[in-house]
Structures are given as C-alpha cells and as structure tokens.
C-alpha cells in the first residue's frame, strides 16, 4: 500500500519513554494508565485499519482535572498527544504515532444531567452517541445526529469530527446540536465554551472546536441539544430502474418544497449486500433504491408521502414499499446503517465520504463507475442523497498490494472529482490522515496557512494530534522554530 507518511518519531522522546511513563504514573492511578505492549495494541489503530502505530502509552483519565494534569505534563515535556473516543474513525483520526501518548475518554462516560424544559443534556465525552438518545427515548426525546457507528462512537469523537448521519437533512450535524463544551487546551488550561443558552458570546469557538479533529483541545464535558421526537416516523422504499432517475427524483422532491427527514440512496451492489445481511425487504429488481423517511402524525405522513409518491411516479419509480410496522422500519434502517459492516463480509473496502452539489449526482455516479472500473475494481454506493454526501465503497482484497494501491488511487480520483464539481473531500468522516494529502486539492496555500495559524492559537507547539488534517509538507514553523511535519 502506498504509505501515508507519519512524522519521524522524535528519538529524544522515545529515549525518555520510561521517565515519561513515570511522570504519567504520578498523575493517574494504575488502572488509568496503559503501558504494556499487549494492552497498548488495542489503541494502535482505529476503523481506518490499513495503518497502525504503537503509542508510547495510553492514558484513560477520569475527569477534567486528570485530563488537565496529563496535558500539562505532556506539554511541558514536548510529548505529542492523540485524543481518542471509541476509535471508530474511518479516516485515521485516532491513529497514534510512536512518540505520542494516547488520551482516551472512555472512563468519562456518565450522563450528568437531562433537562427537558430547556431541551439539553450534559454529558461526559465518553458517552456513546446512542446512549444519549437511549437515556431520553422513554420520554419521547432524542439526540439528532446519528452516525452509522452510533452504538459505539462517543460524543467526544462526534464533536471532534463534527459527525453527521442519515437524519441531518432535517436536524443538522453535530455542530448544530451542541450548546457548550468544557475544553482542556494542550497546556492544561481549562476553557468553558458556550453553555446552556442558545447563543454564546464572543467568537464562535464552539463552531471552531466542532470538527477540529482533536487538534485544538480535549473535550471533557458537553452540553448537547435534545429534541422532542415526532409522533411517528415511516421510511418508504422507492425502487428505480436507473440511478439517474433516482437522482432526478431527489432533486424534484426538494424542488417541490418537501424536506423529508432522510433521503438515502443505494445502488444495485449496495442493495444486494445490505439485503443479504439485514433481510430488510429491499426490492431486488431495481438498480437504485431511495429510502425516504417522513415524520409526523399518521395523517401528516400520509399527506407528505402522497406528494412524494406523485413526484417519484413522474420520474418512473418502479416499486414503492411502505414500512407497515416498527419491525419493518427497524429492518429498513438496519440494512442501511450496516451497509459498511455488511460490505466488510464480502470484501475489504475503503469508504469515501465526499460531498457534491446534488445537481451533479447523475454525472458523478456515472464518473465514479467509470473511475473504479478503470482500475478493474467494483464499487457499491450508499449515501445521503438529500445533502449530496456520497459514500462509494471501493471493494478490494487487502492482501493484494497491487489491488490495495489501485483502490486507494481510485478513491483519490473520486475525491478530486467531488472537489472539481463544487463539493468537498469529506462530508462527515473527517480528514484525519486518510485525506490529509488531498487537502491541497480543495484549499490553496493561503487557505491552509490561515487554518494552521488559527490552529496554532490553541496549540502553538503543534503537539495535539499533529500528523492529521494538514499535509506534512508546507506546514508553518511551530513556535520553537523547528519545522513541523518532517515526513518519514
């Protein structure tokens, strides 16, 4: 596999490993410090498994004070740190480096407060996305962003990556659903950002922190918005003969002033894979499937679906299948949300995450097919059609280095295509290491330098998750004068 570069481990830091671990051991109880090779191995990669690096040590602090103490120590000793939620990042956002300490938030996993009248919950960063919703479901509430990994992924990771999900067409992504965070900076300073009001004063630091990929600080508490769930929700399956028809139907639905809560697209390979796994009752005789979900009372859902069906018919829909029960609804969403996992059963895959203007859907789908075929590979497409966030899954055999290289090249070509048609490299997974070296396709030097200068306002020494997001070449000098990002 063509290597994504990591910085050369700092020999000086490696040589001081024992001293560093001794220092950390003074700050944390033994059960919060992982040093043995066997146990550290669990932290050497994330869901971007093609790359791995063994960290020096793993800290699992239990509260803000411990996070602050560990960060302050690492800051004073010039040790890079890698923040980690559940390690479900698809872009390598949580992959360590040999001279770094991983700081995991898994022991900070309590829900601290649920406040229905003010529609908020205060939670620790290691709480899983789904645990927040589960804690308020019985009272009719939910936490809106719903990444496919929501059973495992943490709210800390969600904020770090500004995670999305299938329902953000109506409810927005993480940044639209967070009110405040407690953030610990690299030097150990604790900063309260936002809070329980709908607006925060001053610069929108919360907006900056969301999606900063663990480069600005470690979040130790979050205040999230919770919303009252609709009276009911119903997904409906629309099967089309061609992807083009499905894409046009999506544009027509939005053009008609209808914004369903979700509009998910699957092509034929994805339908086959997901149906075999979830037995969701997806139609097998079509080339493209839309899962469109509407919400409201029964009468409201009927009315909205009536209009959607009418539009779908104008675009040649072949099959319309409504969920008739909660069990069917669950199966429909299980199929969609396990698309990545189900694909993993039949082949290795890399998952792309570019976003495109939805008007470009038919053209981009055709080009993706051509690109992947050009490399002699197969692709399955599952994505959020309403907002143009694509997830082409490029299938390959990871034990074949030549094929692996082809898959990576095809992925890069697809992401460049997304940028060329007016979109972006990543809609919800993040840049991490995976797309780091493609950043120059979306941003020019001035754009990247401005981002790096703002990053340095939080972490002047570039110690936080330093190998991510920004290409290693062309980085700005760090504060101590040494050039950051010498590639290995």
């Amino acid at each position: 596999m063509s290597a994504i570069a990591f910085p050369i481990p700092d020999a000086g830091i490696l040589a001081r490993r024992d001293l560093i671990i001794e220092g950390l051991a003074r700050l944390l109880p033994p059960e919060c410090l992982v040093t043995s090779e066997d146990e550290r191995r669990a932290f050497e990669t994330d869901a971007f498994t093609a790359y791995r690096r063994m960290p020096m040590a793993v800290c699992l602090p239990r509260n803000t004070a411990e996070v602050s103490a560990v960060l302050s120590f690492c800051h004073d000793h010039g040790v890079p740190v890698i923040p980690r939620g559940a390690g479900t990042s698809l872009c390598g956002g949580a992959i360590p480096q040999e001279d770094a300490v991983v700081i995991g938030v898994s022991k900070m996993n309590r829900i601290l407060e649920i406040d229905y009248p003010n529609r908020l919950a205060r939670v620790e960063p290691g709480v899983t996305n789904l645990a927040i919703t589960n804690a308020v479901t019985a009272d009719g509430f939910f936490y809106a962003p719903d990444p496919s990994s929501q059973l495992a992924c943490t709210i800390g990771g969600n904020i770090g990556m500004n995670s999305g999900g299938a329902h953000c067409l109506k409810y927005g992504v993480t940044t639209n659903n967070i009110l405040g965070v407690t953030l610990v900076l690299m030097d150990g300073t604790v900063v309260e950002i936002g809070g329980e009001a709908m607006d925060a004063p001053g610069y929108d630091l919360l907006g900056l922190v969301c999606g900063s990929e663990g480069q600005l600080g470690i979040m130790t508490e979050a205040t999230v918005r919770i919303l009252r769930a609709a009276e009911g929700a119903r997904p409906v399956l629309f099967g089309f003969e061609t992807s083009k028809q499905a894409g046009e139907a999506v544009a027509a639905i939005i053009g008609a002033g209808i914004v369903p809560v979700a509009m998910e697209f699957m092509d034929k390979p994805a339908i086959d894979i997901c149906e075999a796994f979830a037995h969701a009752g997806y139609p097998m005789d079509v080339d493209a499937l839309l899962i469109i979900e509407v919400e409201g009372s029964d009468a409201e859902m009927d009315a909205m679906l009536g209009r959607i069906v009418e539009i779908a018919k104008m675009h040649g829909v072949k099959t319309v299948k409504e969920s008739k029960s909660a069990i069917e609804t669950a199966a429909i969403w299980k199929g969609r949300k396990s698309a990545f996992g189900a694909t993993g059963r039949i082949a290795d895959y890399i998952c792309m995450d570019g976003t495109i203007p939805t008007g470009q859907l038919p053209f981009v789908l055709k080009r993706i097919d051509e690109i992947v075929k050009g490399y002699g590979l197969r692709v399955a497409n599952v994505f959020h059609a309403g907002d143009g966030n694509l997830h082409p899954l490029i299938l390959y055999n990871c034990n074949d280095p030549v094929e692996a290289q082809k898959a990576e090249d095809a992925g890069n070509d697809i992401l460049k295509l997304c940028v060329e048609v007016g979109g972006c490299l990543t809609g919800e997974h993040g840049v991490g290491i995976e797309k780091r070296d493609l950043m120059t396709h979306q941003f020019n030097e001035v754009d990247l330098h401005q981002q790096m200068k703002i990053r340095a306002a939080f972490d002047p020494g570039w110690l936080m998750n330093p190998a991510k997001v920004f290409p290693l070449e062309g980085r700005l000098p760090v504060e101590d004068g040494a050039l950051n990002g010498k590639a290995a």
Partner: protein
Amino acid sequence: MTLTGMHQPTDETAAAELVRQAKAEGIPIRVAGGGTRGGVGRPAQAGVTVSTAKLRGITLYEPSEMVIGAWAGTPLAEIEATLDAKGQMLAFEPADFRLLYGTNGSPTIGAVAAGNIAGPRRIWAGGCRDSLIGVRFVNGSGELVKSGGRVMKNVTGLDLVKLQAGAWGTLGLLTEVIFKVVPKPDTVATLVLAGLDDPRAIRAMADAITSPFEITGAAHLPDGVGGEGARTYLRIEGFPDSIAYRTDALGKLLAQYGALSRLGDAVGASVWSAIRDAAPLAEPRDQVIWRLSVKPSEAPAAIAAITACRAARAFYDWGGGLIWLATAADGDAGASMIRKAAKAARGYATLLRAPDTLRAVVPVFEPEAPAVAALTKRIKASVDPAGLFNPGLMHAGV
C-alpha cells in the same frame, strides 16, 4: 497617497488591495455594509471605512440544492426576494435593526452573517451560523481566504465559517457568503394565549416546544409591552391539514394555560416581525437596549432580579432563551447588575443600543473569562496580526 474616508471596492481583488494598502500604511479599517447596524459595538477607532455596498450580486442560486451565495454587500431584501420567487427562504429569520437604531439604508447579507443575526425561528431552525455554510474573506494580510463552500455537509478542515459568524467584521472583510436555505412553509399559523404571568408563560412555551408539533416561534410579551394584556405567541408551519391538526393538539396540550386562539395571517406575520426586530422596545429612543441570552427556564427570575433594582421593560423570544430589555441610560445603564442576573440565568448580556459615550465606557459584549479572552486575542492575531479590522469593536485590544 494616504487612505482616508470611505472606499467601496467593486470586486474582491480590489478589496484585498485596499486592505494591503491599509496594512502598509498602518491605518485601521472600519468595515461597513448597509450602515444599518453601525450602532453595534464599542465605538471603533478607524482611519478608513471599507464598505461592501458595491460588492453585490447573487453568485449562486440552486433551488433544488437549497443553497444561495452572494457577494457580501448584496441587500438582504434582494436575497429574500430571489428566494421568495422560488418558494424558499433563509431558515433563521434575520432581524432588521433599522427601527431599533433609527437608521436608513439597506441591510446587507454580509452583515447578517458577520453579526450572526437570527430571529424567532432560531428555536427551530438554528441561528444564522447554522445556515451559513461558506465564506470568502480578506484577512489582515490582504489575502483572500475561503472556508466551507456550497454543500451543506462539509467537515474538510477547520470551520472558519462559524468563526466569522458573530465576529462583527473583526476577523476580516467578508466578501462572499453562502447559505443553505429552506422551503417556505405552505401555511403559517400564529396561536396566542392571553394573560399569563412570566413564569407561567415560560412553562407554557416549554410545554409547546417539547411537544412533537414543531414550534417555530415562541415569544411572550408582558402586559404593557407592545400592547395591552400579556400575550404568549406560538407559531407553527406546514400544510393546511397539518396546521389544523397541530392547532387542535396544542390547544389540548396547553389547556391548563387557558384558551389558545389563532390570529389572522396578516396580524400574525406582523407580530413576528415586531418580535424579530424588538419593535416594542424601539421607543423611547433615549433608552438603552440590552439583549440577554439565557437558559430559558431561568429567564423570568433574571427579569425579576433586574426589575427589582431598576425600571425596565422586557419581553421574551426563543421560549425565554432570548430577552430584549429597555432601560434608562443613566449610570452604567444597569450593566453590572444586568450582567449578574444574566450570569445567574446561565447566560450573558449584550448592550445592543446605547449612546457612543456609554458604549465607550461600558463593555458592549460580555467580558470574557481570562482563558477565553486569551484565545480570542490569539485568534484575532492569527487572522489580523496588525489589528486592522474594526479595532476594539468587540473588546478593547481585539
């Protein structure tokens, strides 16, 4: 030639050139749009004004993608008319401050973004910053920087878009802004409960907002503020059948608070624009206007604490989360006491309207905790190292 007076660049290259010249000459810049919100912030010391008035025009509009982009000086009215023609609108209902400040001119879309200006729909649709998805701006080195773009899901790199929303032009000159937009609702209904005291009104609004009926506006005007008798307004939007169903359901849900009646459409629309623009407090003009953002359930206690100390008139938007308050301009205009009450209500206060002399001595924006203030200064320096843009408008030295 020394830069002075007012400059109106006609494209972003010229805007960047102006900034480079100002930087070379060490001349601070006052950034202006339509000039309707010039009363916001601390009186800024600037040698030259750069107006976006001639940087105008829609750069992108794709109704089926629900996205619009425009040069920063484009009048808001032009944006709204363009969207309206295709049955769409900005989701966050931007406020118009002309009545509050007694200004003329035409509000610009760039200033809406820079001020993060949202109206009553904030509780349902998010703030301006939630709809803003792309910006281009000139930084303090005279470089053109872009962040975000035209697609609504984008996590590529640091989100400088959000950072610009609410920075009031202190982090550069916005040249282009891109928003996601939403379909205009088929029908809008304004429902009203009469005669509730503040605490009960806040509870009624919370009950409504935490129902499944998608409340897009929730405001309470106490007796004597903008009319006789206390009025608690709720707004729902949707297809006619859905409105009928939800009105009925809300009436049952809120029965303990009295009868829920529906206003005529035109009256309802004027109620929401008045609330949006803080119209009930615009007069008398010699009073200052505070804007408090608080935890909704704590809002009545905040008002009670304030009015126990000094005469003030106030009303609530955002289900209590936003308080508009008018009081006399004497002394510090209540600053220390109002800020204490806002803090106790888990929020903060902004002195939105006051004479220049007062805004020069009373912090207009909420003073920041030391750690946040340090970050603010470092961020400002990373974008605008020479401190050219609207110096001191938000905080002294920023």
